């Protein structure tokens, strides 16, 4: 089976993010970038499905040339080839991202499109669902288990109140949650091999997509900071404070 899978570049999920003094964006000096953790889960699922059923996984990123580094990580994990659609993050919103990815889907005609449930920089949680609607495909978001059987895919989803299972007819769109799997760490030979794998670079115009946005970011600010609290020495002191000072008991 053929699987299209995303490889988005994001700021290191564990880095402390700070704003530039003028509030025009985040301070990027010294910041590391990684594959979006949810894309790692999607990639792991894609690659293990290909290992089990044959076919190929094709990785796609929308980003500037630096994002090709992260695309190479996806190739080192086991994707057969990569597609970069050259745009900057500032040019994108969720809608444009989805319209571009939908065109890539139409060009590649995969059986399955695997994405992450959320990008940990923008935290929007929209793109997979948008792509599914643009393409008129069934979706199963927040997947924690995926099983493919002839022409269908059975997906367990993490939802409020428990775990839901859906059966989708292929082609379908699935977004990965963190408990889907444990993403593999590429080994050195795979990293070297990935350098020679094909990466095709396209522009939104090549795909016939008009690069307009529906939502624009106007400004950024720091969240209100909590004033540091007090340390209590004993459980008795804690209860006394909760009762008489915070009045929550």
């Amino acid at each position: 089976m053929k699987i299209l899978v995303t490889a988005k570049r994001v700021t290191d999920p564990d880095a402390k993010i700070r704003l530039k003094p003028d509030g025009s964006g985040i301070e990027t000096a010294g910041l590391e970038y990684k594959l979006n953790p949810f894309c790692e889960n999607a990639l792991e699922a894609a690659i293990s499905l290909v290992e089990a059923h044959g076919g190929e996984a094709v990785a796609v990123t929308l980003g500037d040339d630096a994002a090709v580094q992260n695309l190479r990580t996806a190739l080192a994990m086991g994707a057969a080839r990569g597609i970069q659609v050259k745009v900057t993050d500032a040019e994108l919103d969720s809608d444009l991202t989805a319209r571009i990815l939908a065109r890539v889907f139409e060009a590649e005609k995969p059986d399955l499109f695997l994405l992450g449930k959320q990008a940990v920089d923008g935290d929007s949680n929209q793109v997979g669902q948008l792509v599914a609607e643009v393409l008129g495909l069934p979706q199963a978001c927040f997947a924690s288990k995926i099983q493919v059987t002839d022409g269908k895919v059975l997906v367990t989803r993490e939802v409020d109140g428990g775990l839901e299972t859906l059966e989708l007819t292929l082609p379908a769109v699935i977004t990965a949650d963190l408990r889907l799997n444990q993403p593999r760490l590429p080994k050195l030979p795979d990293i070297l091999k990935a350098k020679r794998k094909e990466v095709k670079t396209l522009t939104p115009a090549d795909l016939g997509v008009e690069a307009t946005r529906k939502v624009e970011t106007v400004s950024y600010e720091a969240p209100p900071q909590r004033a540091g609290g007090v340390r209590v020495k004993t459980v008795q002191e804690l209860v006394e404070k909760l009762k008489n000072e915070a009045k929550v008991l």
Partner: protein
Amino acid sequence: MADVLVVAEVAQGRLRKTTLSAITFARQLASRIGGGFSVLVLGKGVSGPAQEAAAFGAKAVHVVDAPALEHYIASTWAAVVAEAATRVGADFVAATSSTFARDLLPRVAARMNAGMVSEVTAIVGDAPPLRFKRPMWAGNVIATVEVKTPKAVFSVRGAEFDAAAAAGGASPVQALAIPVTADPKVRYAGFAATISERPDLTEASVIVSGGRGLRDKQGFEGVLNPLADALHAAIGATRAVVDAGIAPNDLQIGQTGKVVAPNLYIGVALSGAIQHLAGMKNSKVIVAINKDPEAPIFSVADYGLVADAFKAVPELVEEIRKVRGA
């Protein structure tokens, strides 16, 4: 004139209380655009929740009740919601952020050719252009965004919009005759519910939350259950605990789980990683119990206790019983 349509969420035949946050958002938005708001209730056999939704001053409660809506399916439901918005003249659609809303609303936005803002925490300004605040980077940055399309879709942070109070009187409840076509490419194949007698995390006024320091299921439940019982609290967990299979996914608080803001949050044996803080740092009062004085959770805690949870929490339960009993 533009109106706002709130998509209600129904669970176990009742209106989910979280819906009331989206109603508060809709009231605010409607008053700024000089329009009104109505509520949409979808499902099979939903006259009960539709009646519940009528108490909050909406112009109308619109109901689409159909056998094909017995189970929530994103593609099927999105078509109905978008059509309903057109029929009732709503340019704006909103729901309180939950796995239901996160799954559904982007598809609705695509069908309406509308921009969507996720996890709205505030409406900015009184006149067009309307702008909205939303967190990014696990809440380390707050962005102000502007929707460029005439129509817009919003998922709303329940923790930032208080539940609407009943408005007195009842809105008219009206059936909307929208034909429902179930997506033939999706089959609902079952639901394994997390059974709990405790309050829902997103609705609880007190939450006790545990981390990896509680070691295993026995430690987690042994330490937290008596505390939750004493405080009538909901139980939450970190991702580490959920990944280890100690607590169900439904309990995860954080950037990629639930966002909560109870009156009292007690974090036990959890470090306070940025991804966890993203889900609880707006709680009114935060208590941290951790044996490591350097744990980051102490930087957001109003009251910090450096102690071994296995010893301190049973003592805490005792003390709470004493003051509650008095």
